[in-house]
């Protein structure tokens, strides 16, 4: 790169990239500030609190008194979570169901829609917009909006079927009701990511495959899909992360009770609820953090892969 760059011409060692050592004092201060301020913010408001949560998980603390009222109790919180905390098991189960449903419904559907809309279709923009719209709405808002469909006395479903199910309240069905609304949003998101991925696939690959006589379905599964591996993995990992972080819609429905327990709501309820059990809530948070970090690392490995540094 740039062998005859002006810097090289001037007789310095022609490294294409500037080095800190060559910078003037003002430049050095500027660069330091440009890195330090954002880094301090991210470390101070995300990483340090995250680490402190892990530390607090080994303590008992009501959170009312000062820091000196913190009592070290080792792994007692963890033992309690796994032995004498009834909501934990359903919460984990619900998170797993959430994950499986996100994989089985919106992901394949989003891929299918992306493949269909990738062709230049008449009205393609209309179709795309229809699926994109839910993406801009927050899941909290989605929860409120779907009340119109799920409400016991005024909901559409009961109006049509004449039933009396409280779709948001009945613990046999409310998880599924919430999941339908979540899928409504997630499908468009998967579709959007895949559409971008499909646009980036080299068209000559498809031509070659078509000339070879492969059907469109064959072309997709044998040629296009494998080429899109990076997007596939990103969508996979994002699905995991979304499923584990699920919170908003459940919180607006009933703060994560009666069949809607999720790990995230257990954490929140233990901390901001009436009985603030900080150590215990932190232990739950740490479990959540530990599971999620696996997927975050996976995501980072893909996202930062092509960085030759």
């Amino acid at each position, binding site marked *: 790169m*740039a062998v005859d*760059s*002006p810097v090289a011409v001037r007789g310095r060692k022609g490294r*294409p*990239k*500037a080095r800190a050592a060559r910078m003037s004092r*003002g430049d050095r201060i500027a660069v330091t500030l*440009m*890195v330090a301020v954002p*880094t301090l*913010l991210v470390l101070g408001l995300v*990483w340090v*609190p*995250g680490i402190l*949560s892990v530390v607090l998980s080994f303590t008992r603390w009501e959170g009312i008194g000062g820091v000196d009222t913190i009592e070290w109790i080792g792994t007692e919180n963890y033992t309690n979570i796994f032995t004498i905390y009834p909501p934990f098991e359903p919460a984990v189960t619900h998170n797993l169901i959430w994950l499986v449903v996100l994989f089985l419904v919106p992901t394949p559907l989003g891929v299918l829609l992306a493949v*269909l809309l990738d062709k230049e*279709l008449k009205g393609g923009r209309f*179709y795309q917009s*229809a*699926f*994109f*719209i*839910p993406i*801009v*709405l*927050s899941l*909290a*808002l989605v929860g*409120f*909006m779907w009340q*119109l469909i799920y409400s016991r006395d*005024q909901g559409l479903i009961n*109006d049509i079927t004449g039933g009396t199910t409280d779709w948001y309240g009945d613990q046999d069905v409310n998880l599924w009701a919430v999941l339908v609304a979540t899928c*409504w949003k997630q499908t468009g998101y998967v579709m*959007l*990511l895949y*559409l*971008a991925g499909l646009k980036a696939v080299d068209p000559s690959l498809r*031509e*070659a495959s078509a*000339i*070879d*006589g492969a059907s469109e379905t064959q072309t997709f599964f044998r040629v296009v899909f494998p080429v899109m591996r*990076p997007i596939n993995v990103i*969508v996979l990992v*994002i699905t995991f*992360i979304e499923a584990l972080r699920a*919170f*908003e819609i459940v919180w*607006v429905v009933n703060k994560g009770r009666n069949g809607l327990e999720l790990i995230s709501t257990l954490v929140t309820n233990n*901390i*901001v609820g009436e009985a603030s059990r900080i150590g215990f809530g932190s232990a739950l*948070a740490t479990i*959540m*953090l530990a599971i*999620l970090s696996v997927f975050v*690392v996976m*995501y*980072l490995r893909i996202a930062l892969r092509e960085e030759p*540094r």
Partner: protein
Amino acid sequence: MSGLATDARTATVNRPPRPAPVNRKARRRLLHGFLILMSLVWLFPLLYAVMNSLRSYEYTQDNGYLSLGGWTFDNYTTAWERAGFAGKFVNTLYVTVPGVLLTLFLSSCMAFVLARFSFKLNLTLLGVFLAANLLPQQALLIPLYRMFREIPLPEFMNADGGTLLNSYWALILVNTAFQTGFCTFVLSNYMKTIPKEIYESAMVDGASVLRQYWQLTLPLCRPPLAALATLQVTWIYNEFFWATVLMQTGDKFPITSSLNNLRGQIFTDVNLVAAGSLIVALPPLIVFFVLQRQFVSGLTLGATKG
């Protein structure tokens, strides 16, 4: 790629003929049929909400939701007043505008240094930033909550004279800290595509690092900045968790978290909630329709390294 293509071409001798035109027409119709059906299913919850937000509760109770009639605009005025949306919109503005500007400024600074210089820690820093965007917010709640409670604010920054807790500053800072990682990632990927020669000639002209950032890099980064701005406005506007837990007094709630005001303890008028939801949904929907291209490219920039 071209090698593969020519191989394929030479190998093509006896292949099944292309499907007959009639067959293709039928398939096309089937495809459109399917897509129209699916789009209608997807639009239905929104259109249904629009329809019923315009009907009175009494009418839909008496005639059922499958009826037509009882048209009124009252739900919107009632929702607007009862949830105090006028003030809540202003609250949201207080958080969203500085939040987005600060996020874009800080992440562009960070991305500039990461893309422009090769320091040893570059990749680590990028990882630290990007991961911060993905951590579960609930896991950070207690320490952040306590930290904010301990930090007093001078009176000119907060009319209550209280702490960082229950102040817009807290929301702005937390949102910025969370979103900076993603924006830094997207922007640094983009900045890496800027040819180094531009900087070298700028250095010969004696341009300082700050001038290079401000006058060279930022103007070249208009497309990703526009995309990210669109995305961030929507995200911070929609932000729900921090607003719920860090704001203590209802009058300071941003718009999304104030929707709860429309639900009664025992009885909830869903037509009213629908009207409220649509009021809250309107700004993101407008952003989406006006800036759809920016929004979509912002989301895909992060995933595809485009």
